[in-house]
């Protein structure tokens, strides 16, 4: 299943470098699902930068094997990786800077608050947009989050990184906003779930036809947008579990605690959300596969 390119080929050296770089970012600050996400973002970049069928095949194999992309990254030759990890762009402050920031917030310094808003603003806004799906609500949540952080900074006990704590506060604010908000009209996912016959055998479910052309689907940003749109189609009960577990990297227990539901309910909703998303994305994946298999 795993496609092994020759490491001496120039384009692969370039991409093996990117994959390794992504993994290094992953080891530093991300949880396992986000590490995989890092590697996958590399593959999507690959689609955008290359028209080489071999490279697309390579990417497809990695996407197809999910987390195994990390294993492949470890097998790549070391000489293709620069020792200077500082080349990796990062939007949020380093750990030292984080400590200083927390210190200045605890002292009530105005400059600390401004640094907080400017440094963590993009992260907070990204989470708010993802959970709330409305620019106006995201803007409200943005303001509420920073005020809440400023007011409750003394409760931050440095058991986790400040960035992780900030994410928790932001998600809580989003969930509060969602609870207050009138429930949007939601599409049922029942017809998207797996079907079984009387003997418990899986029955194939026909997915809708894909409207986008293959050219569009091979564009990484377009593909990401298609996936995001389909995730947003899920009813909130399922969407929130999927976001917490698969995107934000919380454990099942943590997600249950955040949402105030049972662990078994998180597992059921997560499986249903992923199955429905699979139903929606099946035509997209089939179209990409048929292009790559040519």
């Amino acid at each position, binding site marked *: 299943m795993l496609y092994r390119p020759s490491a001496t080929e120039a384009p692969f050296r370039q991409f093996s470098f990117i994959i390794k770089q992504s993994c290094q970012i992953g080891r530093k600050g991300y949880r396992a699902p*986000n590490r995989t996400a890092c590697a996958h973002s590399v593959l999507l970049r690959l689609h955008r930068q290359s028209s080489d069928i071999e490279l697309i095949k390579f990417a497809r194999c990695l996407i197809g094997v999910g987390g195994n992309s990390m294993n492949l990254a470890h097998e790549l030759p070391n000489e293709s990786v620069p020792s200077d990890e500082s080349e990796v762009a990062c939007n949020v402050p380093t750990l030292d800077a984080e400590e200083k920031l927390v210190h200045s917030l605890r002292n009530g310094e105005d400059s600390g608050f401004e640094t907080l808003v400017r440094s963590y603003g993009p992260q907070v*806004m990204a989470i708010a947009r993802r959970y709330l799906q409305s620019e106006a609500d995201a803007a409200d949540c943005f303001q509420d989050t920073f005020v809440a952080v400023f007011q409750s900074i003394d409760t931050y006990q440095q058991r986790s990184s400040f960035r992780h704590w900030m994410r928790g506060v932001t998600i809580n604010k989003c969930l509060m906003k969602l609870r207050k908000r009138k429930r949007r009209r939601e599409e049922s996912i029942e017809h998207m779930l*797996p079907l079984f016959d009387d003997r418990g055998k899986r029955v194939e479910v026909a997915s809708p036809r894909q409207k986008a052309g293959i050219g569009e689907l091979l564009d990484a940003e377009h593909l990401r947008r298609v996936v995001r749109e389909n995730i947003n189609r899920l009813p909130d009960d399922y969407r929130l579990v999927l976001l917490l577990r*698969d995107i934000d990297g919380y454990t099942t227990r943590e997600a249950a605690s955040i949402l105030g539901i049972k662990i078994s309910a998180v597992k059921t909703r997560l499986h249903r959300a992923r199955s429905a998303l699979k139903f929606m994305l099946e035509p997209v994946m089939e179209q990409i596969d048929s292009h790559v298999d040519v």
Partner: protein
Amino acid sequence: MLTCKEFDEFMTDYLEGGLPVWQKYMCWLHVKMCRECAYFVRQYRRVVALGQSAFNSPDAPLPDSVPEELVQAAIAHRNTK
């Protein structure tokens, strides 16, 4: 051997390594024997990876940049509290 329906109930735990050895083995065996479930699992994994890359993309431009007015409003908002 498990039926597809029984396997489906265990699937999340199976993929995340949360099953006792015997159940894990039964699931593994089912995937090896059942072409439909093997395909389902493969696509299911891809969907999880696609979902992750759709939101967590360090190489994407910054669509989540914050308008300056909003930054200023947040700073002003804090001063009024």
